[in-house]
């Protein structure tokens, strides 16, 4: 019995993997560029959603620094993958700092470097702040995110300041890259969460006093979770820069973090599968909501509500509705496993079964 369900789960996972790969292949080759771009954005938002859920959902730390970590990863990729011959034309206000002007990295090392620098930044901000409890962390990380943005605006010779960097090679606009990295990070997150360390993170979330009484060093584990989260967000940010082909400090306002907050709240704080589902819903939803930003004329009468910015009103309303009525999100803290799916359909069947016999008796 045990072996049968295990076998079934392995087969289902294999089938799913094949379907996903086929879909990526199909989408990459046959869908139009606009849709591919949105799908890539979905994958990148999944990565950053997962990184935020690791910190907020699984370890129970209230951090709002995701935009900052993303910015670090994004700029690292932008700076180091920018072709050498284009650098002088892009950095026309002030030439690039000679220390980095001659360094060019290919995409993967740049992506990893972005993650490492973001992880290191997470360590620097986490070391003093993670000794505090609760709301202080949210405020400090929010501040951190803004500091990063201001640094990016003012380090003219490194980041090209407010002008930003464009013409970044668009590696991530290929679904194999964005989805490949997203799948790797998804698997790593799942492995981490189900390891002894993941259990320790969850223990801290559940009750930090009890966790400490069970011999878990709170500070050390909080820093670990924070650094891993920062690393993943940095990698996600690198992909983001490569997908958009351009970075500038304004993209990384702290309001960007709220997109990921929405994703993890909608998906469920502490659910990996919930994060994946919510990333797709939120990313596509934000794209669909754009129609509300354009003037709409119905029968010669212009509806005055539809103007730039209206989509954000709807976005905020949706967030409020979720918090009020679905405070646990789509998945809560549970995961969408094969066992659950089959149990669900099993229940549907058993519910249907008595109905059909009823139907039979009336006949």
């Amino acid at each position: 019995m045990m072996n049968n369900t295990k076998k079934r789960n392995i087969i289902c996972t294999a089938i799913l993997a094949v379907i996903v790969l086929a879909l990526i292949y199909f989408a990459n080759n046959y869908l139009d560029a606009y849709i591919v771009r949105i799908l890539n954005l979905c994958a990148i938002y999944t990565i950053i959603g997962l990184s935020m859920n690791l910190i907020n959902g699984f370890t129970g730390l209230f951090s709002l620094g995701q935009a900052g970590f993303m910015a670090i990863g994004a700029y690292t990729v932008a700076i180091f993958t920018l072709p050498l011959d284009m650098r002088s034309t892009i950095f026309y206000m002030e030439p690039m700092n000679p220390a980095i002007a001659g360094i060019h990295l290919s995409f993967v090392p740049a992506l990893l470097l972005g993650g490492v620098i973001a992880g290191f930044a997470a360590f620097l901000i986490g070391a003093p702040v993670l000794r505090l409890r609760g709301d202080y962390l949210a405020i400090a990380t929010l501040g951190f995110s803004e500091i990063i943005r201001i640094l990016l605006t003012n380090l003219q010779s490194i980041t090209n300041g407010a002008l930003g960097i464009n013409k970044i090679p668009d590696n991530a606009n290929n679904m194999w890259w964005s989805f490949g990295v997203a799948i790797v990070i998804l698997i790593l997150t799942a492995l981490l969460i189900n390891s002894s360390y993941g259990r320790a993170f969850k223990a801290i979330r559940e009750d930090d006093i009890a966790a400490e009484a069970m011999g878990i060093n709170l500070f050390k584990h909080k820093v670990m979770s924070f650094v891993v989260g920062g690393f993943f967000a940095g990698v996600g940010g690198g992909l983001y820069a490569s997908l958009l082909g351009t970075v500038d400090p304004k993209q990384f306002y702290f309001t960007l973090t709220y997109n990921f907050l929405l994703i993890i709240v909608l998906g469920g704080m502490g659910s990996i599968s919930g994060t994946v589902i919510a990333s797709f819903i939120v990313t596509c939803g934000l794209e669909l909501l754009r129609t509300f930003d354009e003037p709409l004329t119905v029968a010669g009468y212009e509806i005055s509500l539809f103007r730039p910015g209206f989509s954000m009103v709807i976005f905020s309303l949706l967030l409020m509705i979720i918090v009020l009525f679905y405070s646990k999100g789509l998945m809560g803290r549970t995961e969408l496993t094969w066992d659950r799916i089959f149990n669900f359909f099993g229940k549907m069947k058993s519910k249907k079964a008595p109905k059909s016999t009823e139907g039979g008796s009336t006949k």
Partner: protein
Amino acid sequence: MTPDNKSINETIDKNIVLRTENMTMQFGGVVAVDNLHLTIREHQIVALIGPNGAGKTTAFNMITGVYTPSSGKIFLHGEDITGMSPDKITRKGVARTFQNIRLFKDLSVFDNIIIAKHFSMHSNIFSATLRLPGAVRAEKKMREESEELLERMGLADVKDAVASSLPYGQQRHLEIARALATKPELLLLDEPAAGMNPQETEDLTASIKQIQQDFNLTVFLIEHHMDLVMEISDRIYVLDFGQTIGKGTPAEIQNNPRVVEAYLGVDDDAEN
């Protein structure tokens, strides 16, 4: 003569698991615990009793590192552990339960137990995440030990249940099991029988005795159920408003006029 004396002193000292010297805790102007001297010897069951607000849990919190004493020292096997962090003290072999149950509510019974073994795992986060051989071995060992402990504590058939779904008595039991999972030498129980009916209290009394013998433990407990305290304790300390008003064997405590006064006389006066 001198060396002989010294060796005698040493053997006596080795028997002492926990010793506090002048342990004092002040919250602002309130002295919650005043100059508490405790001596807990190996394999003893020692009780700390006293009316509500006497400072018993504060004493526990100082021993386990939740609070740093305002003054005084705490020694575990002669080593000064005053002001050490709770996780460090747990790793030194002191485990505890809480007065108001603090389980990892949303996690399974099994996870509650295995989390208490996390600190004993020496693999780092990378090898644990990537399932490298060392980490896999450690994980397997932790799982086996947890299963065994659950079996022994009679919780094996609820191991997949969410901790908060257990009935109250079982939650208390699970908390003790979780403390045991850290493989302690000294077990601190903060009101283990709180909210239990007489029958459950009796069962718990037997089970504490059994656990003490099976796991070769020293037990230090706070309790209000006098039947339980008098039956299992080797020694009793009595606190009242932070002051130690009595210490000794159960028989000595029962005949101590100050203790009787604290439990009966003063309360009556206060009410009148």
